């Protein structure tokens, strides 16, 4: 193996850091407000005043891009955190308690995985009603089964191991067992899954926004900003191209990171 796996992870981390910096520092660097409407500058092409031009309502595209970036990163991280919490809790419960709880949790997991991921998210978001919060919940619920499966498998393999039996016999308290043996062992796998899920979460929230099931106008969100400006795609392509490229770069950053982490992990296991 060459150094590329780590180079991939590094490239992902650098890209992510740049995006995060732009999202955090952007509002201080970009003068116009993302919501400031200007009737004189509808669909203005990129210029020194508006680096990425303006949209159909005369709003500065760069300002919306930066505001959308904060939103996207926050939303992605929250979605994965929710999915992680629900999935790991259910998975550990299934793996540790076993019996009926295990059966019920795993069958529900199977059923949820029987839906194409985006279809499940769309159906849930449609039932709950169009809003960013509901879209986030829908995507998180769709991602949770993956975390449940991983943590259940980990819990089962750890529970069967001798040192856990020994620790249990020695009277180690349950919460300490949980943290020290179950969760920490599963963490590398779960974090790789989380990095991969972040990419998926951003893609799906953007897709829901694009379909009108996510963020509602005038909130700056990349997916919704693309669909809001579809009519002027031909005359002013920069309005949709900017958030489109941004979605791609953000997802790319997390996927590079996940790929690098996976490669590094398989190398460690191959050596051991």
């Amino acid at each position, binding site marked *: 193996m060459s150094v590329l796996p780590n180079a991939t992870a590094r490239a992902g981390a650098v890209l992510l850091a740049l995006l995060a910096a732009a999202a955090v520092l952007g509002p201080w660097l970009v003068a116009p407000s993302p919501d400031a409407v200007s009737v004189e500058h509808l669909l203005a092409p990129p210029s020194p005043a508006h680096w990425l031009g303006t949209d159909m309502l005369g709003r500065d595209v760069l300002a919306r891009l930066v505001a959308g970036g904060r939103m996207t990163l926050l939303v992605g991280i929250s979605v994965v955190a929710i999915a992680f919490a629900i999935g790991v809790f259910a998975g550990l419960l299934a793996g540790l308690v076993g019996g009926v709880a295990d059966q019920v949790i795993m069958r529900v997991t199977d059923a949820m995985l029987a*839906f194409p991921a*985006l*279809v499940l998210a*769309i159906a849930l978001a*449609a039932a709950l009603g169009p809003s960013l919060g509901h879209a986030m919940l829908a995507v998180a619920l769709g991602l949770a089964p993956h975390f449940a499966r991983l943590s259940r498998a980990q819990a089962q393999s750890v529970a069967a191991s001798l040192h856990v039996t020994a620790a249990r016999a020695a009277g180690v308290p349950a919460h300490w067992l949980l943290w020290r043996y179950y969760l920490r062992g599963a963490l590398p796998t779960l974090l790789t899954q989380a990095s991969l899920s972040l990419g998926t979460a951003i893609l799906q929230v953007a897709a829901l926004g694009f379909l009108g099931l996510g963020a509602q106008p005038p909130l700056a969100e990349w997916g919704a900003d693309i669909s809001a400006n579809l009519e002027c795609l031909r005359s002013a*392509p920069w309005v949709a191209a900017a958030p*489109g490229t941004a979605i791609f770069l953000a997802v790319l950053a997390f996927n590079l990171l996940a790929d690098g982490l996976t490669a590094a992990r398989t190398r460690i296991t191959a050596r051991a």
Partner: protein
Amino acid sequence: MIAGYLLRRVLAAIPVLALVLVLVFALARMIPGDPAAAMLGPGASTTQIAALRQTMRLDEPLTAQFTHYVVQVAHGDLGISLKTGRPLAGALAEKFPATIELAVAATVLALVLAIPAAVLAAVRPDGWIDNALRVIGIAGVSLPAFLTALALQAVFGAWLGWLPVALRQSPWLAQPPITGLAVVDAVLRGRLDMLLDALAHLVLPALVLASFLAASFSRLLRASLIAALHAPHVRAARARGLPARAIVWRHALRFAIVPTLPVIGIQFGDMLGGAILTETVFSWPGLGRFTVEAIHNRDYPAIQAATLVFAAVFIVVSILIDAFALWLDPRLRGGGA
């Protein structure tokens, strides 16, 4: 042997399908407030709401509602559209072939792109081709489907004017469907102009869906192929002095594909999700566009029915893929028998 396995596999899918029904049933009950009032929108009268409550049996206990729903679905009745008042089973059956045609075309296209890419990468792992393909692959799975769709539409449709960017066929060539698959219908009628027209409409949306599938599948197949190239039977073939080309294509590839098949199944599901976005952008009259229209019309029975069909297709495809894996690799048949 395969029949026995398939039977077990189908039986195992029944509890999953039952839970899928529970989830789809629950969808309409998750609507905040009175589902009937929400479905009919703010303009509805109290009598209209009461009538819908009665049709949905909302005043009965949940278990009775669910039993009724299952019996209905078992009879092939997927409910009535709130928008058109037509049975949904018929409406979905009309849309179904369009999505299948798109998905099959995308899968074929993805395999055509991914298999040679995986072979090129696996023959020299970590060579420059492998590294270049790795980056292309990661980039490929990072592209939002609706963005690829819009970009292809802009470049090949609006800018170059080479390909049509909407619908499945040119209106002046429209004929009543035979199979509903435009390409197959054109062949059955022996019309070359219809065939070319259908393919021209198909290529861009299929390419959008294929790009994602090809990107992820080629990475998987590469890893599996590298392992297969070190398998004993491949080393034996090499020792016998078989040409490298024959070793890779005939001996290694067949076994390298098997472990990737379950993942193809999962990715087929992702592709169905992507089809919703692609169909929306290309006005492709399939299940995906139907779903999005249903969402805009707040036609909940239609959303439920479409969701159920998507899940059913996904379950059937994963069973078929398992059967295909069994056919490719006889060693798998021993397992649970």
